[in-house]
């Protein structure tokens, strides 16, 4: 465990050093982050021109969800996308060989190798939106709910990672799945709305199959003190099962890895 933490430190130190060479990126990206957030905000705000209450969420409550959406966009862009996209390349080109030979867990290595620091700005902007919306609602969350909020974010991130990883792992069989990540994005887009906006099958899918609700809606609901506690109890077992499944599937798929002969 300690060894893995040390590895992470080395990985990210390298990533950070590379990025410090392109410092202007920070500025440009910060500018874009704010612009995008504003745009997503408008997309939600339009609904509140026609109502005060959308599926049980008032305007600023929904804006907390928008903030969470931005937080997770940042996480996706900083950590998940660069690594997961690289896996497809490794499988297609056969360079996964070099990773399998290393004395570390291969799934750990492929999915944590890179970190794009300046995408963290998205997360900062997201949290700023959350704080702003809370202040407009005159809500000061208790220390307990902030802690629970952070735990829910981490569990949501684990779920997202696991689902994505499982989908990418199918690249061992279908080599051409570059666009499978796009599929995750298009589901993720739903996360800009509180999940109760959706009905029936769609809501079930977004809660339990591609659990976007656990990333944006439920953490937001914790802060707003309007979360159904059943979901809190479900979060941990659900995250663990998703994670277990992705680990199992990765190991299973590795057996079918044939490398690429030259």
């Amino acid at each position: 465990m300690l060894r893995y933490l040390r590895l992470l430190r080395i990985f990210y130190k390298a990533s950070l050093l590379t990025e410090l060479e392109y410092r202007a990126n920070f500025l440009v990206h910060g500018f874009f982050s704010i612009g995008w957030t504003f745009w997503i905000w408008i997309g939600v705000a339009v609904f509140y021109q026609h109502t005060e209450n959308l599926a049980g969420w008032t305007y600023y409550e929904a804006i907390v969800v928008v903030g969470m959406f931005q937080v997770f966009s940042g996480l996706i862009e900083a950590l998940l996308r660069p690594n997961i996209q690289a896996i497809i390349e490794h499988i297609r080109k056969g360079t996964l060989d070099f990773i399998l030979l290393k004395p570390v867990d291969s799934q750990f290595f492929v999915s944590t190798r890179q970190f794009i620091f300046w995408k963290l700005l998205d997360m900062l902007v997201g949290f700023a939106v959350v704080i702003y919306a809370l202040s407009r609602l005159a809500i000061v969350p208790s220390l307990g709910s902030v802690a629970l909020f952070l735990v829910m974010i981490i569990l949501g991130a684990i779920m997202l990672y696991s689902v994505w990883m499982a989908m990418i792992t199918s690249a061992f069989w279908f080599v051409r799945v570059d666009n499978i990540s796009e599929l995750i994005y298009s589901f993720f887009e739903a996360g800009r709305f509180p999940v109760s906006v959706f009905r029936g099958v769609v809501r079930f899918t977004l809660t339990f199959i591609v659990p976007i609700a656990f990333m944006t809606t439920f953490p937001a609901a914790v802060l707003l003190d309007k979360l159904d506690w059943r979901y809190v109890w479900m979060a941990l077992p659900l995250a663990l099962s998703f994670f277990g499944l992705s680990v199992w599937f990765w190991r299973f798929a590795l057996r079918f890895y044939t490398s690429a002969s030259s």
Partner: protein
Amino acid sequence: MIRMWRVYKALVRREIRLVMAYRVQMVIWLITGILPLIMLSAWLTLGEGGPVGSFTPTDFIAYYLAAIFVRQMTGVWIIWDLDYQIRQGEFSTLLLRPLDPMHEFAARGLGGKWQRFWMLLPVLTIAALLTGVRYSVSPLNLLAFILAMIGAWMLSFLIQYINGLLAFWITQAVAVFDLWFGLWTILSGYLIPLELLPRAVGQVAYWLPFRYQLAVPLEIALGRLQGADLLLSLGMQAFWIAVMYGVCRMLWRRGIKKYSAVGA
């Protein structure tokens, strides 16, 4: 003219075969276009309390089903390839051919439409029948719709081609496109019917090119755009196509000089 026709026929046919080879990919691409359905669910929830603006729940369904169709049939996805080819110097191969690369890219885009059309049509038709939505299909309206669709595709193509040509000068042409796309999602009526946007935003959208890339054919299909408004919109669309074509030729002439000067 006849030569052009033959060239296009050959290129389109080639592209259709290419697309056929990656059917699963095409299915995934089509599924990624579900964002309108997400917006639809949100509006339907909101619409439970009565019509929103001039939109009843059925209108919303009609709107977003048509949005998917218009988007898939007039969408252009060449920027990544164009940008890559220019930056990597592979563009030289295209330049050696006795054909303006613009036509090569245009024909490819058109070729991709064939399969999209036949995959979408049954799905959307069934969805429309099940939900009981109606479109305006008088002969005159249909003619206007087809014209507006062709115009929307041409406009989208020119805009993306211009954007791709920026790669002659800058390395972040794709980032510029992302910005454009972000504006497009709202100002074209793709995510939200323009009528439901705040009035000021809606008015700005009227003068910008985005509306003519998607909302115009869409509103024609719904019968929401008629008479003088319709003619005016088609005129504006033609205007934007002319402007973009002019910009495109100018950038092309300058860019190509720059490109050979680099000597890839």
